């Protein structure tokens, strides 16, 4: 961790705090965000399975128990109790940050997210708040089984009342999590375990707390707009770089926040390029790519080619890498699909 400026005073949410820039992995950026939130917001709690004394199965929460004591604790393997207690603690003024180790495990306790957490503020007519952050991670990694490989953001995005983000860069892993913890709305932060230990990146720490929302224009281009999120952003950018050499100019929009969704900006940009492709790791049918296409279609944006969706075909996720490689499109296949789509066969 090489710091390029000296550590600032204890930051606060109201004054614009001084910043430092550090070289961090994505996982370390998550850790830094948690440390900042635990330091700045005394109401925060951090808990989940193996998060405290062991520092997390991915090492992401390392050192936080030592630093913040009992506000950081380990729990039984009881997702309903973890999530339910977060709902209750939040109703009573805490700001719990809980970890669901894999997004797949959220399904053993989905009631607490959909029927409980999402209802608190609305049903109480604003008398209660539920500023819960659920940190989880998802996606496919070599050898992982069908029960540890799903991309389930579409479930959460069909639940009004929840906010949902999916950081891809180390900077966003930091910024989005801080924004989520500061937000008074329940927020699902979906990380990706294949990114935790990827190469270090410059991360600006401290700095003003961002508002949930927005998009990242990762690449400018004129032939088509590719909308993507999460770890698949890398594949979109690789494909776009490859296609640039073949004379196809792609705009790549990464959506770090899917709720709130920047509908107007996306529509405006698609209007300019006249083509929309959506790329995600989740299964295509019922994936959030459908929503993006439907919003653009609903706005009557004239398109030069039919909207394209690329993602996991409608199947389960097998463990064997040779099978997964066939199903989940890599940047080569993505590039080929986009090329044919833009230029024709």
């Amino acid at each position: 961790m090489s710091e390029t400026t000296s550590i600032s005073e204890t930051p606060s949410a109201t004054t614009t705090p001084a910043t430092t820039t550090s070289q961090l992995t994505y996982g370390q950026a998550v850790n830094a965000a948690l440390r900042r939130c635990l330091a700045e917001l005394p109401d925060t709690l951090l808990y989940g399975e193996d998060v405290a004394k062991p520092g997390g199965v991915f090492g992401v929460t390392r050192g936080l128990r030592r630093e913040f004591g009992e506000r950081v604790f380990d729990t039984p393997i009881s997702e309903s109790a973890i999530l339910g207690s977060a709902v209750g603690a939040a109703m009573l003024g805490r700001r719990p940050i809980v970890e669901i180790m894999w997004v797949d495990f959220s399904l053993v306790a989905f009631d607490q997210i959909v029927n409980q957490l999402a209802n608190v503020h609305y049903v109480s007519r604003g008398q209660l708040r539920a500023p819960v952050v659920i940190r989880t991670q998802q996606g496919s990694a070599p050898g992982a089984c069908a029960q540890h490989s799903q991309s389930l953001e579409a479930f959460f995005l069909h639940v009004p009342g929840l906010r949902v983000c999916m950081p891809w860069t180390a900077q966003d892993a930091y910024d989005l999590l801080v924004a989520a913890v500061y937000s008074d709305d329940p927020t699902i932060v979906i990380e990706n375990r294949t990114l935790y230990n990827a190469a270090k990146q410059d991360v600006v720490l401290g700095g003003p707390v961002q508002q949930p929302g927005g998009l990242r224009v990762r690449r400018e281009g004129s032939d088509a707009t590719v909308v993507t999120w999460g770890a698949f952003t890398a594949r979109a950018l690789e494909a776009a770089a490859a296609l640039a050499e073949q004379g196809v100019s792609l705009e790549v929009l990464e959506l770090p926040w899917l709720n709130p969704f920047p509908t107007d900006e996306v529509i405006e940009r698609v209007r300019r390029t006249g083509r929309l492709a959506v790329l995600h790791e989740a299964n295509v049918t019922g994936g959030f790519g459908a929503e993006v296409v439907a919003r653009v279609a609903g706005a009557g944006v004239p398109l030069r080619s039919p909207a394209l969706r690329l993602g996991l075909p409608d199947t389960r996720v097998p463990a064997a890498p040779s099978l997964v490689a066939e199903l989940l499109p890599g940047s080569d296949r993505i590039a080929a699909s986009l090329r044919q789509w833009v230029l024709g066969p």
Partner: protein
Amino acid sequence: MSDQTRATDGVTGSRSRILADLHQVWRMRVFEEKVRDLRLAGDAVGSIHLGIGQEAVAVGTAELIGPDDALFATYRGHSWALACGVPPAALFAEVLGRATGTNGGRGGSAHLSAPAHRFFGENSIVGAGAPIAVGAALAGRFDGSGRVAITVFGDGAMNQGAVHEAMNFAAAMNLPVVFVCENNTWSELTPIDEMVRDPHLHRRAAAYGIPGERIDGNDPAIVRDRLGAAVRRAREGGGPTLVEAMTARLVGHYIGDAEQYRRPGELDEARRLEPTVRLAAQLRAAGAPDAEIERAEHDARAETEQAAAEALAAPLADPATAKDHLYV
């Protein structure tokens, strides 16, 4: 009911205390009778679950709930809201979908809440309130409030995974939670004794290493005594307790339930043991004149009628607000 604490020998408190309890029971009873009338008249709509017969559990708990405590109930929660001090007019209004309801009509009979009154809400998912209550207790560990969280659920809820997780979580973390199982022996239309091998549900507490007790839930004094001990233990750092309060639902699972599942004569004993009968008998034994006993009911009816009238006069929930408060 062999191993439950039950007062079989008459008076269990002072005459004024019993009288106050009877008044509270009647407040709940007539509130729900009125809800039933409103439902049958079509002023209220939808599925409504009454706790008629079970009121003593709520009455006995009422004064144990400290100012910073938090109570979590189920869809069968009108009496619990009243026990927390929620004004009956606001409850009626909620059941009637009025703007003046506790939740402005968003909760309805089965999902209402009034946090200012320590009533953190009903829950219409069986068992889901238990882990949420655990979280309220958890918050208390950090906010210096000394909060005890009380969560109420039915016998059938004991078979729901979330309740198991909640009890173990609270036990492992030694959190101040009182788990109150209102055992009315029915889960909707199915008897609990066919759904478990040992219907003494309080014995499950041992699985979590916490105290468990079965009590007579039809006498507020007994409830106050035994639940009081649990609340005290929780407040003093002794962790959670499971209390199984035996009681009977004298009406259907919901308004309109034809109750064809009842066992022959099942409710005969229950009607003899139910709180209005029991407390009246205790008062009589303590020398209270009939007029005093009748006044408890009479006052409750007057208060309740007025609250209902107030609620009926309130405007319907305003459609223009229907989308408010989804996000902060």
